[in-house]
């Protein structure tokens, strides 16, 4: 029973104690409940609890306990708890009392029995007393009561004494004795019970001190709190209305009690954060709402620390705030980590943003690159229809037309030509920008370049201008560079200069300069030039409109030189061809350390209109001209200078301009050139010099002068001044070669081959002569300035035979070849007869039926019958059986592609054996070497021209073609024009 009471007790306590926690304490909080006396108390006792950090103002605590709501509530809880316990104790006592009284009743019953017995004895003797006594006894039971019991006991004693009085005799004595004993036992029992009662009363007294009970509970709670909080980095405190500390718990106290209690924060600490926390507490005090805040303290006492502070107002019973409870936890590390995290996150975000930005940029760059590449790739697509138009116009011009029609056709052709050139410029530019442009490294003679450019310019000159060239002595005779590009730049600049110069002179100056110190920083090199250009020359190039004219007109400058140099020309060309094939080896050789780099500066100056200062910054921009009026007056697209600049920069140099308005302007570009060592170049030179003894002094001549020709007729006859009109035939073909940025990169082999053709055909000149005179006649008929034209024509034909400058021969011959070729085409009928006699054997390797049909019928119209095979392997077999004069080879084919087939054919030509082909798996029709191996090897065949047919006009694929031994390529789809061109180049007539 006692045990049951105990558990009941503890259960009740549970509930009561839990209420000591804040009301919002969750169920989980209960598991830390203190009240587990049997088990947990021991554990608590093992823990040594430091009492020190607890600094209490007891008076205040009392006050708090009695005045605040919370205190009240807590007290009420305690009292209730106590009352309950008391009630319980009372109940226990009652129960005990009940037990006792039950026992007493039993005793009394016993006694009654005894009395009954006794009475029975009496009845036996007295007889009639019984009913009355039972009734009496019943009554007695009815009115049973604690006080009466006492009387009963007394009465019992009385009875015994009475019994004793009535006794008589021995039997009765003994009986009385027994009764006595029983009575005694009963009394004893009663006494024991009385003792027990006393005991429990005492126990009751001992248990029931409420203060003790309360303080025990408090101690337990206190212990618990200490146990929990002993290592917690928290400060708990209470501050009164004036924010003076009344209570503080701090596990790591740095101040003593007297330093804190009764003082405010501001009085204790100094430093940043103190004021803030003070204000915060004040705020809470005023608002009466609990709040949390993070405050960073920077105090002398404990340095820089961040606390998370929870402040809760404390209300009095009347509902006024009388202070705040304050709980602080140090979160410095967390804050630091958090800040670090935030920073990292921020950085990550920044990084991500950057990344996306970068990706975007990359994307854009890629897009633009692709667009530019596309443009470069499209060059062919753009050009071929246009050249179709031009060539059709050209054909049209060869039909019978009246004067007006001829003029219209001429306008058509020249416009078409102009468009072609502009497109070429744009494509050049996009090629440079997209990085497709490749530079060649070949030897050339700067003096000759200068001379030729000036000659070219002079030939087409329609103004009274002096053209002069000056090459300093220290400029090497031969340097290595991309002569085509350099020429393009020079021609552009010179024609620009001429365009914007009405009178005076235009000149080129070439001299060696030390390597610019600041060259790595190109901008700084450019800056002075820009500053110095205090006045300017409104010039924008329209040079492209001039260029082809230049090319064509250039022939005129050879006027007066010998016509009989044909042999020399041929030999030179042969050399050139050899040169061309050697270029790659040369390049390798040139890269040896002994070769030096020379920086040559080139000034192109004029006495023209100059460029206004404000226009200089935009001068080199694409599609801009110095001014709108300039554009109107002089025409042009504004691409030339941009191309020049890009080309110069591509070659590692810098193009700048300085100009004085109305005085003239000077374009300067500086470029590095490799100089081949003397020993090396002497070999090459000696070869050439053999043929060029006459030109020897020319090699070192550094200055050229082209005085204005006093040919009034030149200027008078054509006010538009476009001599181009005189040579419509060259028109359609010319630009694609002269300006074909795509073709030019790789054009040297083809041109050298051209030369070979010419050389093998000694009467090329005469043919040219014939055709040109034929054209002449037709022109004479149609044009009013007939005599002038024929003069021009003659000049041209003369010049075409005179070619002494090897480095120019390439272009020269190309021009020549074209002139020739186009004249040939115009006079096809006259040439058909000889062709029919010696039919050139042509092989077409093409897998596409349609292409085959088209090419075949085109060739048929051109007067050729061709053999056709469908793939590379068949081509190899065909070449094995028959010696072809020309092979047109598709690149992409099933079974074996054109590149491999070319390699195999080339390998055969070199070695005379088909081993490679056999290795490559070509089934040869004849047993390759067994028939007459020696014969085959003794007579290695001559090199068959192989021309690639490719749908991709990009220079990469062109490079592939050349690398695999092809001589040239025509782009697909094949048309009359490129077929003709190719036949003229490779088929000896």
């Amino acid at each position, binding site marked *: 029973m006692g045990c049951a009471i105990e558990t009941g007790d503890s259960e009740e306590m549970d509930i009561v104690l839990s209420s000591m926690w804040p009301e919002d304490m969750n169920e989980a909080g209960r598991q830390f409940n203190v009240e587990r006396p049997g088990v947990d108390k021991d554990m608590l006792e093992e823990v040594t609890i430091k009492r020190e950090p607890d600094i209490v103002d007891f008076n205040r605590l009392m006050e708090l306990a009695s005045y605040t709501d919370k205190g009240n509530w807590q007290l009420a809880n305690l009292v209730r708890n106590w009352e309950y316990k008391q009630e319980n104790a009372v109940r226990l006592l009652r129960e005990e009392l009940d037990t006792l009284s039950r026992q007493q009743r039993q005793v009394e019953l016993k006694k009654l029995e005894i009395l009954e017995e006794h009475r029975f004895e009496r009845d036996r003797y007295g007889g009639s007393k019984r009913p009355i006594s039972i009734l009496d006894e019943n009554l007695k039971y009815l009115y049973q009561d604690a006080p009466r019991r006492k009387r009963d006991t007394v009465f019992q004693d009385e009875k015994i004494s009475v019994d004793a009085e009535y006794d008589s005799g021995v039997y009765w004595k003994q009986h009385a004795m027994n009764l006595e004993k029983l009575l005694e036992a009963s009394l004893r029992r009663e006494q024991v019970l009385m003792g027990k009662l006393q005991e429990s009363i005492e126990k009751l007294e001992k248990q029931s001190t409420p203060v003790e009970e309360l303080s025990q509970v408090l101690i337990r709670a206190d212990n618990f709190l200490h146990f929990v909080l002993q290592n917690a980095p928290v400060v708990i405190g209470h501050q009164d209305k004036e924010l003076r500390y009344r209570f503080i718990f701090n596990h790591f106290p740095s101040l003593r009690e007297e330093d804190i209690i009764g003082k405010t924060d501001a009085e204790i600490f100094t430093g940043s954060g103190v004021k803030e926390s003070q204000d915060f507490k004040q705020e809470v005090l005023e608002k009466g709402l609990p709040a949390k805040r993070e405050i960073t303290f920077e105090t002398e006492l404990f340095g820089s620390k961040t606390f998370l502070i929870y402040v809760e107002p404390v209300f009095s019973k009347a509902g006024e705030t009388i202070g705040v409870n304050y709980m602080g936890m140090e979160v410095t590390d967390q804050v630091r980590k958090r800040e670090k995290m935030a920073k990292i996150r921020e950085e990550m975000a920044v990084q991500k943003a950057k990344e996306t930005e970068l990706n975007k940029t990359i994307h854009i760059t890629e897009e633009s690159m692709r667009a530019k590449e596309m443009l470069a790739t499209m060059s062919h697509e753009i050009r*071929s*229809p246009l050249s*179709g*138009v031009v060539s*059709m116009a050209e054909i049209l011009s060869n039909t019978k037309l009246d004067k007006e029609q001829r003029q219209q056709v001429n306008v058509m052709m020249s416009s078409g030509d102009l468009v072609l050139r502009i497109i070429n410029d744009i494509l050049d530019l996009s090629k440079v920008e997209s990085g497709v442009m490749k530079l060649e490294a070949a030897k050339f003679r700067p003096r000759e370049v200068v001379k030729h450019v000036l000659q070219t310019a002079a030939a087409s000159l329609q103004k009274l201008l002096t053209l002069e060239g000056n090459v300093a002595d220290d400029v090497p005779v031969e340097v290595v560079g991309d002569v085509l590009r350099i020429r393009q730049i020079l021609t552009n600049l010179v024609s620009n200069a001429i365009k914007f110069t009405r009178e005076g002179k235009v000149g080129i100056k070439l001299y060696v300069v030390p390597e610019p110190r600041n060259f790595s920083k190109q901008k700084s090199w450019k800056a002075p030039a820009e500053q110095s250009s205090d006045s300017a020359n409104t010039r924008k190039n329209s040079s492209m409109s001039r260029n082809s004219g230049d090319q064509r007109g250039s022939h005129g400058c050879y006027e007066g030189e010998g016509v009989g140099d044909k042999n020399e020309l041929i030999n030179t060309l042969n050399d050139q061809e050899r040169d061309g094939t050697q270029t790659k080896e040369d390049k390798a050789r040139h890269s040896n350390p002994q070769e030096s780099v020379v920086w040559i500066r080139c000034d192109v100056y004029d006495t023209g209109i100059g460029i206004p200062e404000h226009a200089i910054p935009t001068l080199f921009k694409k599609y801009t001209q110095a001014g709108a009026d300039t554009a109107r007056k002089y025409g042009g697209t504004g691409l030339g200078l941009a191309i020049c600049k890009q080309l110069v920069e591509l070659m590692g140099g810098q193009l700048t301009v300085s100009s004085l308005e109305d005085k003239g302007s000077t374009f300067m570009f500086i470029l590095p050139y490799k100089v081949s060592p003397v020993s090396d170049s002497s070999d090459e030179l000696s070869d050439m010099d053999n043929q060029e003894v006459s030109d020897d002094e020319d090699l070192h001549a550094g200055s050229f002068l082209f005085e204005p020709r006093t040919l009034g007729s030149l200027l008078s006859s054509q006010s538009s001044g476009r001599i181009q009109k005189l040579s419509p035939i060259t028109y359609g073909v010319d630009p694609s070669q002269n300006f074909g940025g795509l073709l030019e990169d790789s054009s040297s082999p083809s041109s050298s081959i051209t030369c070979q053709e010419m050389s093998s055909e000694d009467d090329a000149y005469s043919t040219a002569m014939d055709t040109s005179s034929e054209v002449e006649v037709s022109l004479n008929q149609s044009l009013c300035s007939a005599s002038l034209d024929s003069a021009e024509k003659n000049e041209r034909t003369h010049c075409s035979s005179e070619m002494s400058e090897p480095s120019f021969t390439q272009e020269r011959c190309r021009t020549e070849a074209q002139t020739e070729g186009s004249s040939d085409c115009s006079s096809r009928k006259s040439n058909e007869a000889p062709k029919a006699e010696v039919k050139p054997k042509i092989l077409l390797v093409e*897998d*596409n*039926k*349609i*292409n085959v*049909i*088209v090419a075949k*019928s*085109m060739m*048929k*119209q051109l007067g050729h019958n061709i053999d056709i095979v469908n793939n590379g392997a068949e081509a190899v077999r065909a070449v094995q059986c028959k010696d072809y004069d020309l092979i047109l080879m*598709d690149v*992409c084919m*099933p079974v074996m592609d054109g590149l491999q087939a070319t390699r195999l054919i080339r390998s055969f030509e070199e070695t005379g054996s088909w081993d490679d082909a056999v290795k490559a798996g070509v089934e040869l029709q004849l047993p390759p070497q067994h028939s007459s191996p020696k014969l085959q090897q003794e007579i290695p065949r001559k090199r068959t021209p192989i021309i690639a047919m490719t*749908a991709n006009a990009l220079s990469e694929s062109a490079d592939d073609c050349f690398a695999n031994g092809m001589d040239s390529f025509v782009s*697909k*789809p*094949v*048309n*009359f024009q490129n077929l003709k061109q190719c036949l003229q180049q490779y088929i000896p007539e």
Partner: protein
Amino acid sequence: MLGLSVEQLRADMNRLLAILFHQGVLDEQFLQLQQLQDESSPNFVSEVVTIYFHESEKLLRNLRALLVDKELSDYKKMGIHLNQLMGSSSSIGAQRLRNVCAAFRAASELNNRPGCLRALELLEYEYCYLKNKLHEFFQIEQQRMLAAAVRYPAPQQHRNNPQG
């Protein structure tokens, strides 16, 4: 009356060609093809084009078959077919077809199946368009030639008149 019709047919042909050129369906290569047509081969263009359609139809079928096979679309083979088609298209001057082929090839190089499918659809569409137009063109040409040929023999006039 027939003379008129010949002229009209010629005008129709030219108009049709102009439209096709303007739309970019054909390019100047087609003119080159026409140049190849002379007395010795009066039907050269239509013959070539017929072969072209024959070949292309096969190629398109193959391409379709290759693409339909979802698991193992053989992009390499597709590229070969496309090169073929592109080559012959550019040879007859079917510019738009050629361009679509180029796009198709680009897609096939990237193994971009949806792109390929789109391109194929476009290709088929362009193919049909070209075929229809050229068919029309050749029909007119045929009529023109017939009309030109039958101008003098009087009895045939009536027979051909409804067609003209």
